[in-house]
């Protein structure tokens, strides 16, 4: 196990290095840089732009910049924003709770809706209700979430002159207002995630329901509810855990769009702003931070999979 863990960690760090290289090169290959943007409206005196680039360290050859960046990373330093000069570890620490809260609220709503409906759909297999639930679930994963997000603002505003609260209130300041402000984006994310969980759970429940031990459970006279709760659901949930891990990544990715629509100052909005401003340092830091979370999530999911189900060996790569 220790050997397996160590191996996985080494392998994960290789992937992280790859992410760092890809992002570092890609941001610098984007047309225009932050200095161009800075002087776009005002115009620059001759030499002014070059001086600024020199100061920001953008005039060095890319390999030199990369070596310097790696040196900083090795010391645990994420660097500073090119635009604001703020320490990026601080910026990320400020922004993370917003994205995390959105992800958690979405996850909780999705589980609350997706798990019972998924079980219902499987148990009632072939019924009209099953058909309806399946159609709803597939609708949930098909409907563009950014479209619903825009509609949650535009339709009530047009017809009732009302919009769901926009912006963000920190959880520790006023928990109720904070949750209220994040209700709309979290529910929009839930449409997709709950649909996804329903589909997965229905499929795994159906597999489990026809196994021998389910017949045994029925034969020894357990009530249908106990059969399902104690024997079927427990086993059917295993792959759903994996799915939740994978979908967590989707939530991080979706936060880019949702945070921009609902004006939430999270990591997604930060990265989107940084990208359009060509703030290389911020883009690098946020993608690296997200990549660490994603790769760790995958690792934890893989390991927990082995713990939940001992039949799965860790010998496979």
């Amino acid at each position, binding site marked *: 196990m220790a050997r397996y863990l160590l191996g996985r960690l080494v*392998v*994960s760090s*290789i*992937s*992280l290095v*790859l*992410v760092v290289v*890809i*992002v570092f090169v*890609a*941001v610098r*290959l*984007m*047309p225009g840089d932050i200095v161009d943007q800075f002087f776009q409206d005002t115009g620059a005196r001759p030499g002014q732009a070059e001086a600024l680039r020199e100061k920001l360290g953008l005039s060095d050859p890319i390999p030199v910049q990369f070596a310097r960046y790696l040196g900083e990373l090795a010391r645990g330093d994420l660097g500073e924003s090119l635009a604001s000069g703020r320490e990026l570890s601080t910026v990320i620490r400020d922004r993370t709770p917003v994205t995390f809260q959105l992800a958690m609220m979405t996850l909780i709503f999705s589980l609350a809706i997706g798990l019972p409906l998924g079980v219902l759909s499987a148990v009632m297999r072939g019924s009209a209700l099953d*058909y309806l639930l*399946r*159609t709803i679930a*597939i609708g949930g*994963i*098909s*409907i*563009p979430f*950014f*479209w619903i997000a*825009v*509609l949650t*603002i*535009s*339709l009530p*505003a*047009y017809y009732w002159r009302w*919009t769901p609260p926009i912006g963000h209130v920190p959880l520790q300041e006023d928990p109720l207002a904070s949750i209220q402000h994040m209700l709309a984006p979290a529910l929009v994310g839930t449409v997709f995630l709950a649909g996804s969980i329903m*589909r*997965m759970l229905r*499929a*795994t429940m*159906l597999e489990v329901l026809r196994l021998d031990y389910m017949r045994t459970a029925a034969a020894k006279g357990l009530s249908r509810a106990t059969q399902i709760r104690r024997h079927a659901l427990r086993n059917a949930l295993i*792959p759903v855990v994996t*799915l939740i891990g*994978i979908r967590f*990544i*989707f939530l*991080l*990715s*979706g936060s*880019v*769009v949702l945070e*921009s629509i609902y004006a939430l100052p999270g990591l997604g909005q930060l*990265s*989107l702003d940084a*990208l359009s401003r060509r703030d290389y340092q911020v*883009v690098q830091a*946020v*993608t690296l931070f*997200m*990549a660490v979370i*994603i*790769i760790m999530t*995958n690792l934890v999911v893989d390991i927990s999979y082995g713990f939940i189900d001992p039949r799965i060996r860790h010998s496979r*790569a």
Partner: protein
Amino acid sequence: MATTGVGRQSALGAGRASVALGWWRAITLFARRQPLATFGALVLLFGLVIAVIGPSITPKDPYDTDVLNGLRSPGEGYLLGTDNLGRDILSRVLVATRFSLLLGLAAVAFGLLIAVLVGVISGYAGGIADMVLQRIVDAAIGIPFILFLLLIVTMAGASFLSIALIIGLYQGVTSSRIVRGAVMSVREEVYVEAATTIGATPVRVMARHVLPNVIAPVIIIASLNLGSAILAESVLSFLGYGVQPPDPTWGQMMGVEARPYVTRAPWMAFFPGVALAVTVFAINVLGDGLRDTLDPRLRGSVA
């Protein structure tokens, strides 16, 4: 000689007829077993027809601006209303169909190529090649998809080709895992061992024995990736990183164009979104039906 020739020809003819009959039977059986998927197929077919003839059946010129008739609500002369520049929404939605569907198909085709190439090499060769390829896959999965897309598309410049290639590349790399898994299980089959034993080269074994047996997951990946490819392009256009105006795309219509008027003209975002949602829904129900028919074991592995 002559008689064998004739005999072979007629046998071929009969074979063809029964193949056609078999296809027809398969389709009617599919329609009976999977009504929702069949509905999806019909909607998708309708979408493809619109993609082909869309530009010639628009009630108005989709590019023609008419500021005096800007922000007209649906109804009165403009079935789905007009945008801020007075352009007919219906016409623009119709014209944009071609772009979305073509882009999705191109991305998926390219993605399949990558997925099969990476998956087969990784799953069949194993060892160092597998190790190296899988680390690249890990890295790709590790970058949040939308950020990756925005980054690389800005880098390469947004065009039909670049967006299709980038979405395809990402989908191909990430779905190669499923092909790899399928290849790894097929590799252990007796018929592969038999082929190797009688001296077939690795390439021949791959092409003649492994590939045909992983066709089912490949078809399923293709159908489910098509929906996400179309969605991915729409997110990109929605955020203003897609192909540049005036060529309309659904994402751009509900994003960059509609968002400034979000409280004044909800129809600007509503109708392109309906077109997008219906298209993706149709593709996904079809993909689901195909998956259940072709390979029910995959249920869950491609969510």
